[in-house]
């Protein structure tokens, strides 16, 4: 039975999640140098174009068509059989296509997150091929294992409410792998460039926070109490994490920064994503306060120590925050919040923590290896990196023949 309220909420949520990709474009675009801002906006927007089509043609089927195996089935290619009646195994009160388009928005933003790692040095053509292959061979299988009917991680009881493993750890590990094998930006000379437009970063963060209500509360797939819980804990965790990052900076560097508050808020949103449908507001505060500690250490201590150039900290925020969120779900999950979920370690069920650990481990190993293989293939046929001169001139001019800001007139 289709429910009007549920359908309206899922459609609105789909639009909210779509908005997160342009939001991410500004979040990342503000952080790069002015000569590369259009390249980042372009990568985000072309992903919206390319993966929207990919999703309808093959992505949805290989992710969600029921099957036991590497991918989902192929019976839903081109949306054959994906109609306007509910498909009750996924969502009993909304049209099947509403579920499909909601999930499609997740498939779009996930590869867009990786952009932060290879920003300012990747060839546009190589980026396009890499993204298509990654959506097909990494996102598709993983979404199937965790969320699809017959998926093996789903069957062993791994909890991932809105995409902590499938979206954030997945993209974050791919980010680390590409940052390492792509190498540092050559023009740095041991000098890390400052963000060229901090207000863009703040604008992007605000829109991400807003869109995340669709991401998490929409994942209830109904306009019900569970959606409200997800909404409340999402806002609470983001707030706690933004505050926490500012306090860490205040103690550590003497002054809090708006960049810090934004980084913290995004880290908090990442961390609460897998937990949103299983934890209460007090747990959300703890999850939010702690995620900024972990991510702050990752970007200020771990990154400089190992020397990989994760330009915009896609790994440091999304993977580290995502791992904490997935494990925190295993600690703080409570059947009092969601009877269909499970209890975590702190509610008397240590086994859930181990299941979460397994899901995290599988994601890291699978995504790490396959991303490396895809990268090598693309590098062999196209060459992933732009030449040194193009990098010095900036990707806006060399990859797209346009520039963001005029100086005269």
């Amino acid at each position: 039975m289709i429910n009007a309220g549920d359908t309206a909420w899922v459609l609105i949520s789909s639009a909210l999640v779509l908005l997160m990709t342009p939001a991410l474009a500004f979040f990342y675009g503000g952080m790069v140098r002015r000569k590369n801002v259009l390249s980042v906006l372009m990568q985000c927007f072309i992903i919206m174009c390319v993966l929207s089509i990919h999703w309808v043609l093959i992505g949805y089927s290989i992710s969600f068509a029921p099957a036991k195996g590497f991918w989902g089935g192929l019976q839903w290619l081109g949306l054959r059989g994906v109609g306007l009646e509910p498909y009750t195994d996924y969502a009993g009160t909304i049209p099947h296509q509403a579920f499909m388009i909601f999930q499609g928005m997740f498939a779009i933003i996930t590869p867009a997150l990786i952009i932060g790692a290879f920003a300012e040095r990747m060839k546009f053509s190589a980026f396009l091929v890499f993204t298509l292959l990654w959506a097909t061979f990494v996102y598709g299988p993983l979404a199937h294992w965790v969320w699809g009917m017959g998926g093996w991680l789903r069957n062993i009881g791994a909890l991932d409410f809105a995409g902590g493993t499938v979206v954030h750890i997945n993209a974050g590990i791919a980010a680390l792998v590409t940052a390492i094998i792509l190498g540092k930006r050559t023009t740095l000379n041991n000098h890390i460039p400052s963000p060229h437009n901090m207000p863009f970063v703040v604008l992007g963060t605000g829109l991400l926070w807003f869109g995340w209500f669709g991401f998490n509360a929409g994942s209830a797939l109904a306009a019900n109490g569970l959606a409200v819980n997800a909404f409340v804990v999402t806002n609470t965790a983001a707030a706690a994490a933004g505050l926490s990052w500012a306090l860490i900076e205040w103690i550590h560097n003497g002054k809090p920064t708006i960049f810090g508050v934004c980084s913290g808020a995004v880290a908090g949103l990442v961390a609460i994503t897998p937990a949103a449908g299983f934890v209460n507001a007090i747990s959300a505060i703890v999850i939010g306060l702690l995620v900024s500690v972990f991510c702050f250490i990752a970007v200020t201590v771990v990154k400089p120590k190992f020397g990989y150039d994760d330009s915009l900290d896609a790994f440091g925020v999304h993977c580290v925050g995502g791992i904490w969120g997935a494990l925190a779900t295993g600690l703080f999950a409570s059947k009092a919040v969601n009877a269909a979920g499970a209890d975590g370690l702190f509610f008397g069920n240590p086994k859930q923590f181990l299941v979460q650990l397994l899901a995290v481990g599988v994601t890291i190993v699978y995504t790490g290896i396959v991303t490396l293989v895809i990268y090598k293939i693309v590098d062999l046929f196209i060459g992933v990196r732009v030449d040194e001169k193009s990098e010095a001139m900036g990707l806006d001019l060399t990859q797209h023949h346009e520039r963001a800001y005029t100086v005269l007139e």
Partner: protein
Amino acid sequence: MKLIIAIIQPHRLEEVKEELYKAEINLITVSEVLGHGRQKGVTEFYRGHKETGNLLRKIRLEIAVNDNFTEPTIKAIMKGAKTGSTGDGKIFVLDLKDCVRIRTEERGATAIG
């Protein structure tokens, strides 16, 4: 003729302009520039990454004057720009070989004012 180049604090520009008007010096060119002096600029933090020696925003004035206006111009700039703290800036005075007013094709001293 002299070309006077002054680097001043951005927030003193209005005062300097006022002092120049009082001294009847009306022709100035202003640009935004970056620089630092002995204090080596400011320290900035981005996601905990420390950037020292960042350049500070300054205003650069260019004023071409006839010789009898040189001292009044310098005095006016000093009066407007001086706060007594570090970073107040500098005034450079250069000899100016020629000056052309494009509209009338006048040259030299008559073209300046």
